């Protein structure tokens, strides 16, 4: 029995060393690459290395919304202030029950109108369409039957007038130049079919003329941890994978898409909770299968601020949904794994998401189980275990801080000494505490999956102050 346990634990040891070494190497290479890219980006902006400011593409901004009465006004008002020449805003009310649509109609003096819409993607019936004639930017509100976020996006695509559309969450605020910056990626290459911006967590926001007034670290500890987590995740994987056209996700909070390609690929998938990942994998798959030259870009200079869950309950709900979405997308496009001719997307990106995102909670649980078994059979080497754990925590801590400081100097963010102290402390708590809680949440994400798979997640929103 002891021999069998020894053999098992030896195998687990090897598995973990290979697994962690692979993870750390990926993280390390991508963070170094990301830091370099951010540094170059700042230098480019400082020395006028960008395309002419008058270049533009007409863009339709689609906001799918469900019961977002608290935040929708600030979101729309900030969008009306974007530094961009030609765009329209389409809000799709997915059967809200909090009076959001009436609130918008009243706020923006909208009139109901019989606008014919070409239904190029199947979607739930539209109840009514309103337009505001008094805003400088065309503003449309579409009321429809409840069908989920993906269905609301599909309605928005059908109604969009322009060849490119941006999907943003109702609680997100775009920086005034974000649209210009993300659209420039399309002008840099004709093959760009989608581009994602950087999503930064921000709660207790104040907006003046569409600009955030001094965004700092949030007061809430959980939100602070998410700031660090987002910095690390965006810096670590997105910038690096972008170099190889291998990003497999564009955050639902802010993404630009070429409309005709999305329509040709079938639009957003309604039977998933992770429509933002699904659409990117679908576009990869579609373009590879159809032999269409394409690029999916990540633009770190285009910043979108979004509200973070501030309670553990909301956070676990969000992460559960993300993990389910990840599973659904990866399962649906499982043929992309190690697919000949699919390049880096298939051989590195898919593999990374599979091993270090989808399987990671289970592998970590296996590690805990193996540790408990080793303790039970008296085979634990406490000194080595503590050392290994310490190094792992220190490495994660160093990575989080690298990403945090890189973002500060590269995007020219203003932080106080208090913010830096908070980052130092919270990053330590995040790598020792929150990470394990989220691991358990993700491991248990499939419980109750069928029952709630198409529901909008309900997260408490905070009103944004507009000055």
């Amino acid at each position: 029995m002891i021999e069998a346990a020894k053999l098992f634990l030896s195998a687990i040891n090897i598995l973990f060393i290979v697994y962690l070494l692979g993870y750390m190497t990926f993280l390390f290479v991508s963070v170094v690459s990301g830091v370099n890219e951010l540094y170059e980006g700042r230098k480019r902006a400082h020395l006028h290395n960008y395309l002419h400011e008058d270049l533009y593409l007409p863009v339709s901004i689609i906001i799918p919304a469900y019961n977002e009465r608290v935040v929708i006004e600030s979101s729309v008002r900030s969008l009306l202030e974007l530094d961009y020449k030609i765009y329209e805003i389409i809000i799709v009310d997915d059967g809200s029950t909090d009076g959001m649509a009436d609130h918008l109609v009243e706020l923006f003096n909208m009139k109901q109108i019989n606008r014919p819409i070409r239904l190029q993607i199947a979607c739930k019936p539209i109840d009514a369409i309103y337009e505001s004639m008094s805003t400088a930017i065309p503003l449309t509100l579409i009321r429809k039957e409840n069908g989920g976020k993906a269905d609301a996006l599909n309605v928005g695509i059908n109604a969009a007038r322009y060849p490119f559309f941006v999907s943003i969450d109702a609680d997100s605020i775009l920086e005034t130049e974000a649209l210009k910056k993300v659209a420039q990626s399309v002008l840099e290459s004709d093959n760009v079919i989608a581009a994602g911006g950087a999503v930064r967590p921000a709660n207790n926001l104040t907006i003046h003329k569409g600009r955030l007034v001094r965004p700092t670290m949030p007061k809430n500890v959980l939100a602070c941890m998410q700031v660090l987590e987002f910095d690390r995740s965006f810096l670590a994987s997105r910038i690096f994978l972008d170099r190889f056209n291998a990003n497999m996700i564009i955050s639902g909070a802010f993404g630009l898409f070429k409309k005709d390609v999305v329509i040709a690929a079938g639009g957003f998938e309604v039977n998933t909770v992770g429509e933002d990942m699904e659409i990117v994998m679908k576009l990869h798959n579609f373009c590879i299968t159809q032999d269409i030259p394409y690029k999916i870009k990540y633009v770190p200079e285009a910043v979108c601020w979004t509200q973070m869950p501030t309670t553990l309950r909301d956070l676990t709900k969000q992460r559960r949904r993300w993990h389910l979405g990840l599973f659904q997308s990866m399962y649906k496009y499982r043929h992309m794994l190690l697919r000949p001719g699919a390049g880096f997307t298939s051989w590195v990106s898919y593999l990374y998401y599979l091993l270090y995102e989808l399987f990671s909670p289970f592998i970590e649980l296996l590690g805990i189980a193996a540790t408990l078994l080793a303790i039970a059979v008296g085979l634990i080497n406490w000194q080595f275990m503590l050392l290994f754990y310490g190094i792992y925590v220190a490495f994660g801590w160093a990575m989080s801080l690298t990403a945090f400081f890189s973002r500060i100097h590269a995007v020219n963010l203003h932080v106080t000494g208090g913010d830096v102290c908070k980052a130092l402390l919270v990053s330590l708590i995040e790598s020792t505490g929150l990470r394990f809680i989220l691991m358990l949440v993700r491991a248990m994400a499939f419980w109750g999956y069928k029952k709630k798979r198409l529901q909008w997640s309900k997260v408490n929103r905070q009103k944004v102050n507009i000055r």
Partner: protein
Amino acid sequence: MNIETVIYSYTTICCGMIVFNILCSVYHVFQERRILRYGYRLEVLMRDGVRRTILNETLEANDLNGLGKRLKNTDQLVAFDRVMQQLLEENESAARRYLLALEPMFEILCSHYRTGEGVETAYYCYLLGRYFKGIRKMPPKIGDFLRGRLYSASLYCRQNAIGAISAIGDQASLLEGLMILNRRPGSYHDKSISEALLPFGGDRAALLEGLWLHFEGYDQPMQLAILNYIRLSGGGCDPQMLGFLDDETADTELRLAAIRYFGRYPNAEAKSRLIKLLSDFRYERWEYAAVSATSLAAYSGHDVVEALKAALYSRDWYVRYNASASLERMGLDAEQLSDVLSGSDRYAREILQYRLDTRRARQSQMTEPEEVLVYD
């Protein structure tokens, strides 16, 4: 090598990166102060130079050499540009004469920035375009430098270089530059070329003559960029554009650009051609019909209205949509459109009704203005 060593190494390098980032943040704080300090010093020198130029005095060779050496440093160049911006605002003609007097120095600097980093070289190209805007005769060394940058791997370098060549306003250099870019497929976006051409600082008529002379030698994206430039910069090429409307074998995008051109610059001869294109209901011709429907909004006459009304019954959604928009823009009322509104075609009726409702709503709201864009 054991696992601990690898992890220790990574952690050490990460700590190094944290230190690097902190140092970078500090550096950027001091960089701004340094640029300001450089600016104060340069301002004295530059104001003296402007004064001398106004008095028709020659600039001291030592001063020029000294300034040239300083501007090899990018921070000094940024500071120089800030001061120059100020001088241009105060007295543009004097500042421009001073810049012309500095031309030999800029030519020498070209050899420095030729070998520099892509980002810095692109910046230097951008500055040359601003400083020598509209001089119309390309200084030889600057011309060589800018044309050379069109081969750069950096998109921004190429874009700033072609923008600078265009701004300087020497059409021969610009035509040569366009040809260089044309020989590098995929190195530019047609929109970015159109935008680079727009601030052309020379004789537009001479440029157009040159562009048409070389037109056949360009690839389709460059041809499209040129047609769009002509449309956006004042027209004046009706005969050539009519040629595109008539040439069935011409590239679709070029013909569509010509149709858009006549939407901006109405032409009696183009009118009948646009109506013909709109009335062609063949499925494969829908793009011509859709764009013609939009362009015809700039024309008047019974024949135009009838063609647009007929287009409301098109099988193509975009043709119907654009035709209804044009009818609305032409200001026709419900009575004039009653045949469609009371007709049996539901799609035609609905799309037209939508336009009329939109106009009515807009007009009613104009009397009761809504200050939705004001933040209080």
